[in-house]
C-alpha cells in the first residue's frame, strides 16, 4: 500500500480554513511520515513539504508500511510511548528501524529513539540510538530557551532553534554515534547512520535546513 493513498484529514493545528498552499512534491519525492499520535505533527508536516518531501501522517501500522522515512515529533514522550504500545505500533516501528528506515526524532522523538534513559521510572521506548538521554535536562518550562547553534554538516551559519523542556544526551554508548552539536558540553544533535535526533525543535522556527539534510539522505523510490 502506498502512503500516498492515505486520506489527508484535518489534523490538530490545521484548523478552520485548512492548510496553507505548499509546493506539490514531484513524483520521485520520498514519502516521509510523521508519527501522529500526539505532539507538534503539523509543524513537521509543513517543514517536510517545504523541503520537497511527500509528507503524510502515520497513526497505524499499515500507514507505517507506506513510508520511506519517519519523523518522531516533539510532544510528551511518555504519552507517545504508551500510545505506540496500545495501538500496536511499537514492534512494527522497531522492526522498520532495525531494517534501516531513516528516522529523525526531535525532543520527545530523541527520547523515544534512545536506547537508555537517565531515570528510574520505566517508560516505553522505541530505541535503536545507542545513547543515554536525560529528560527535561535543562530544567522546567521557565528555563526553556531560544538559541542559535552551530550544527556540523549544516551550512549557512548557526541554526535558529528552540529548546522546550528539552532533553540532552548524557552518554554516548557506541562509537558509531556522531555528535553534531553540543550545548554546555552535552550532545544535542546526534546521528547514528540513518537515525538522527535533536534535543531542540528545528520545526517551530522556520529554519528548515536540518529537515532538508535529513530528507536528502532518504534513498529515492
Amino acid at each position, binding site marked *: 500500500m502506498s502512503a500516498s493513498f492515505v486520506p489527508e484529514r484535518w489534523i490538530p*493545528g490545521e484548523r478552520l480554513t485548512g492548510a496553507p498552499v505548499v509546493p506539490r512534491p514531484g513524483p520521485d519525492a520520498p514519502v516521509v511520515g510523521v508519527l501522529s499520535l500526539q505532539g507538534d505533527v503539523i509543524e513537521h508536516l509543513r517543514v517536510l513539504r517545504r523541503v520537497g518531501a511527500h509528507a503524510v501522517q502515520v497513526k497505524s501500522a499499515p500507514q507505517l508500511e507506506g513510508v520511506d522515512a519517519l519523523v518522531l515529533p516533539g*510532544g*510528551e514522550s511518555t504519552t507517545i510511548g504508551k*500510545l505506540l504500545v496500545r495501538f500496536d505500533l511499537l514492534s512494527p516501528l522497531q522492526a522498520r528501524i532495525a531494517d534501516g528506515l531513516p528516522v529523525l526524532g526531535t525532543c520527545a522523538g530523541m527520547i523515544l529513539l534512545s536506547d537508555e534513559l537517565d531515570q528510574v521510572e520505566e517508560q516505553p521506548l522505541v530505541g535503536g540510538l545507542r545513547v543515554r538521554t536525560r529528560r527535561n535536562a535543562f530544567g522546567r518550562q*521557565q528555563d526553556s*530557551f531560544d*538559541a542559535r547553534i552551530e550544527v556540523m554538516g549544516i551550512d549557512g551559519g548557526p541554526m535558529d532553534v528552540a529548546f522546550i523542556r528539552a532533553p540532552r544526551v548524557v552518554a554516548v554508548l557506541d562509537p558509531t554515534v556522531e555528535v553534531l552539536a*553540543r*550545548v554546555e558540553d552535552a550532545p544535542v544533535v546526534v546521528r547514528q547512520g540513518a537515525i538522527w535526533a535533536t534535543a531542540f525543535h528545528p520545526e*517551530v522556527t522556520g529554519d528548515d535546513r536540518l529537515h532538508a539534510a535529513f530528507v536528502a539522505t532518504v534513498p529515492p523510490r
Partner: protein
Amino acid sequence: MNAADPHATDPRTGTSRVKRGLADMLKGGVIMDVVTPEQARIAEEAGAVAVMALERVPADIRAQGGVARMSDPDMIDGIVETVSIPVMAKARIGHFVEAQVLASLGVDYIDESEVLTPADEAHHIDKWRFDVPFVCGATNLGEALRRLAEGAAMIRSKGEAGTGNVVEATRHMRAIAGEIRRLATMDETELYAAAKEHRAPVELVRECAETGRLPVVLFTAGGIATPADAAMMMQLGADGVFVGSGIFKSGNPEQRARAIVEATTHFEDPGVVAKVSRGLGEAMVGINLDTLPEDEKYAARGW
C-alpha cells in the same frame, strides 16, 4: 567525528516562541485536573500530556461554594515531584501575586481561570511580565484575542466547568471557529470594524483573517466527561482537551482517563471511540445548564 566547538549563542528564556511552543507540544493530548499526587500518577499512567494541579475539582467547588483560590504550595510541590510531565496550576483572574507564587514554584503553565473566584473585576493579569506561559479561557474570538493581547500563550474554550455537560464547550468552540471563518471573508476596511466589534486589537484580528486560525494553540475545556465528548471537540477544531471533574468524579478514573486519551488521538475513527467507550462504568452525574442559575455560571467570569 565530533563537532569542533559549537555553542549556543544568544540563549533567551521566556520568549513567545518557547511559551507558545510548549502548547504546540501538548497538541493532540489530554490535560487532566488532579488534586493529589496519587491522582497525578494515575493521570500520567493513563497518558496525560500534562496535569492541572488544583485544590478541588470544579464539581466540588460548585458543590461546596465559598471563595476558590490558588492551591497550597505544598500540594503543588507534591505533584511536581511525583510526575515527569508538565504541571499546570490555576491562579484567580487578575491575581498577579498568585501567579508570581506559582511561577516561583516552577509550574510549567499557569491557568488564569474563571473556575476560581476572580480577584479583579476589571483587569486580567499582565502576562507579558512572566517567563512562565499562561493559558486563559475564552467564550468567543474577541475574548481569546484580548487574552492574547495581555500575553496569554494558549487559549482554551471555557465551557461550563464542573457540570459534566459539554454543551457550553461546543458553543464556545463553534463561536471561535465561526468568527474566524467570517473574518477570512472580509476586506481590509471591514477588518477594522470587526476589530471594534470583537473589542480586540486589529493586528490580531488581521492575523486570524490571514491565517484562518488563532495565533496560538486552542484547547477545549469545560464539561468534557466521555471519550465521545473529547473526540467531538477535536472534530470541532480543538487542538487538545482539558478534562476537569470528568475523570476523578467518575466510577473508574483509571480506565476513563485512558479511554479519553485514546479517543483524543483517534478522534476521527468512530471504531476506536466505540471500543474505548465500552464498560467504562458511571460517568460523572452532570448538571443541565438550564437548571443552573446565571450567577453560578463560571463562563461569565472574565471580561
